């Protein structure tokens, strides 16, 4: 394999550090299943990085799928749409998985999934039209970060020469990006063509970890069939090492360029988009249906029947788990997102958000190891893809030393968790990193 398929290239540079996690891609061959319409969805007004939206519907309003129910005038924000048709029954505050209190709109579904009459294909022939359309679609980075896509795409024309389509999916368990590549491969390719042509990006790299041979095969075959752009769209297979899919790591693997601390991918001529986001853009340009549903992997040792599912945004985690046969054993920990960077939730009564890509439930047997004293082995530093020394940073954080912390580069940390994964003493190194960052931010605030 590999060399025999045309258009498949190998990584340009080998990443530093990283860890070999067990893949657990149990659901890789399971087709995405569309779940029945839930009775009720709760749609938070903060599902993205940036300003929260303000609800523009009231209790009692009739809404239809794709109808805008929340918007903001801020630039770094993105509108939110009704994901089912029915009646608004509540507009109030809820606590999200990350502890943030957000406004949310509750919609009682009428079960008909009636499409909003305003939904029609957008005009997207110029850069400005495309950016406006992407904003109107409510798209955020579907890989987990939730950054509004129209902001990402609004780079200075001509500064980006490489679009990297991120299908690495390096987190264990999650397989929805893999399924997206296999099931909606033409959407992926037409999304790429739209971005490439309208934004004027000469080169496209679809980056996939080697452990997804089927996705690599299908996408490279299709990329090879597009005569017009021969050689301009390539599939690149990357080593299966975590965190291969992290933005800076991916840029380095795919192009050999290093994004300096505090800089953006566009500063080194790159744009990284999640594969599901790219496919969504193609579908949106065709149909005009905003981001109202998404795919999720439901897996973990406590889940009865692991599945890949497509659900309306705002469906309750508990309802989704019920559709996967419920719990096999008493769950000990439930995570939204992957096990390396996901968020442990304290209730199943929380809604699925735009950026969630998995729901994982684990039984007691998978609990973490006990914390013991640091033995100074340096494995955290060896694993850090950003060349940081987490154990040293933890020491400075304990001493509350903002100056040493910023000199040690704590702000560069992307919280991938490789250090803590590798730590034989079971130290909460990522938590220490977050503490370190907040110490730096506090000090910066104090100094002006």
């Amino acid at each position, binding site marked *: 394999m590999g060399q025999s398929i045309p258009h498949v290239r190998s990584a340009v540079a080998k990443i530093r550090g990283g860890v070999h996690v067990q893949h657990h891609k149990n659901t890789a061959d399971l087709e995405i299943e569309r779940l029945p319409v839930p009775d009720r969805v709760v749609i938070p007004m903060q599902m993205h990085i940036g300003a929260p939206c303000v609800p523009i519907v009231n209790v009692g309003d009739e809404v239809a799928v794709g109808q805008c129910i929340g918007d903001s005038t801020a630039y770094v924000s993105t509108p939110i749409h009704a994901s089912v048709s029915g009646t608004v029954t509540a507009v109030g505050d809820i606590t999200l998985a990350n502890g943030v209190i957000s406004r949310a709109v509750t919609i009682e579904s009428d079960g008909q999934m009636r499409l909003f009459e305003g939904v029609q294909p957008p005009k997207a022939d110029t850069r400005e039209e495309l950016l406006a359309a992407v904003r109107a679609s409510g798209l955020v980075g579907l890989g987990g970060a939730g950054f509004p896509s129209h902001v990402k795409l609004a780079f200075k024309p001509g500064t980006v020469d490489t679009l990297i389509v991120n299908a690495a999916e390096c987190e264990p368990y999650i397989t929805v990006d893999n399924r997206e590549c296999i099931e909606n491969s033409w959407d992926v390719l037409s999304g790429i063509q739209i971005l490439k042509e309208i934004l004027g990006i000469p080169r496209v790299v679809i980056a996939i970890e080697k452990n997804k041979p089927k996705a690599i095969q299908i996408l490279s075959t299709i990329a090879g069939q597009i005569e017009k752009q021969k050689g301009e769209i390539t599939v690149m297979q990357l080593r299966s090492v975590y965190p291969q899919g992290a933005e800076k790591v991916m840029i380095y693997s795919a192009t050999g360029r290093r994004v300096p601390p505090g800089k953006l991918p566009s500063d080194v001529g790159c744009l990284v988009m999640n594969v599901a986001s790219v496919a969504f853009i193609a579908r949106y340009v065709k149909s005009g249906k905003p981001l109202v549903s998404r795919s999720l992997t439901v897996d973990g040792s406590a889940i009865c029947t692991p599945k890949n599912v497509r659900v309306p945004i705002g469906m309750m985690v*508990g309802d989704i788990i019920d559709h996967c046969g419920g719990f096999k054993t008493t769950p000990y920990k439930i995570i939204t997102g992957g096990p390396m960077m996901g968020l442990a939730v*304290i209730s199943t009564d929380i809604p699925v958000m735009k950026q969630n890509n998995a729901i994982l439930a684990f039984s007691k047997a998978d609990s973490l190891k006990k914390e013991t004293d640091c*033995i100074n082995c340096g494995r955290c530093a060896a694993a850090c893809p950003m060349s940081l020394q987490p154990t040293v940073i933890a020491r400075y954080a304990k001493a509350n030393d903002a100056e040493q912390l910023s000199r040690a580069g704590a702000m560069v940390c992307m919280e991938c968790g490789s250090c803590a994964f590798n730590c034989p003493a079971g130290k909460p190194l990522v938590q220490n990193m977050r503490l370190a960052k907040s110490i730096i931010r506090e000090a910066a605030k104090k100094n002006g």
Partner: protein
Amino acid sequence: MVDDRLLTASASPHARGRDTTRLIMLDVLIALTPSLIASVVLFGFRALAVTAVSIASCVLFEYISRKVMKRANTIGDLSAAVTGMILAFNLPSTIPFWMVIFGAAISIIVVKQMFGGIGQNFVNPALLARIVLMVSFPKAMLASWATPFAWRGSTPDAVTSATPLAVLKTGEGDLPALWTMCFAKAGCLGEVCAAALVLGGIYMLVRRVITPVIPACYIGTVAVCMLICGFARQENAWSFAAYELLSGGLLLGAIFMATDYATSPISTKGKIIFAVGCGLITSLIRLFGNMNEGVSFSILIMNILVPHIDRLTVPKPFGTVKEKKKKKEAAAS
């Protein structure tokens, strides 16, 4: 539905690697086992007894000091057992048991626990105990080597054999054949079988307990120094260097003692500086000092420098533009 009160919330990552401190220490013990077997074959039951006494007293002292300091019991992490085993490997088989116990007390109580326990000691505990014993009881530590295999003969207490290092230094006496040096020579318990030490080192490399940086740089530096010296003295430089590498505690020190996590630098660059320093000091002591052996003191000196090495070798965060390059770019624009 699920009882929400039973759900655990914690910071990511929610997956952890399998390695624990205990497993790492267990791997070190396994890596030390070939050398233990070799020492028993060479020096008989006494070697096993010295090791057993050393391990038992180290574990006991660890237990007692944690108890006295009202801290959690840590003998389960096996680090005290590793210290005990390495300490025994630094002692001659003829040493009185009370000295072994004294050494164990120095390493665990004074060097390890008084500085905060595992990971906090600033020098290698077994190493400092060896030096204390060497300085306090030079006769027992440096002048009474059992001849390999003598325990099987009619005179089991033959304590005459001079170590190869002493021969190399003074030029008096005969060196054993080079091939026997790989398997059996006079010396401390753990030093005597080079092959067993290398086997243990390979095991630790395969299990990723250590990286090859420190042993390779340490042994390499000594090799280069000895070759230079050999050529300068116009002797057979290659055989001189080979004898030097296989003699004394160099392999034991380079593979098992200089690689101690708590007392070696974190970054690869730091490890190289540390190991080259160890190699240079060892060579200087062996060539110009009035002691035969320099491994212990060289590692001790470099141990003390580790905090400074660590501070000077912090890697730049990924993507940091070097100052020079920045200036060049500024000049270009």
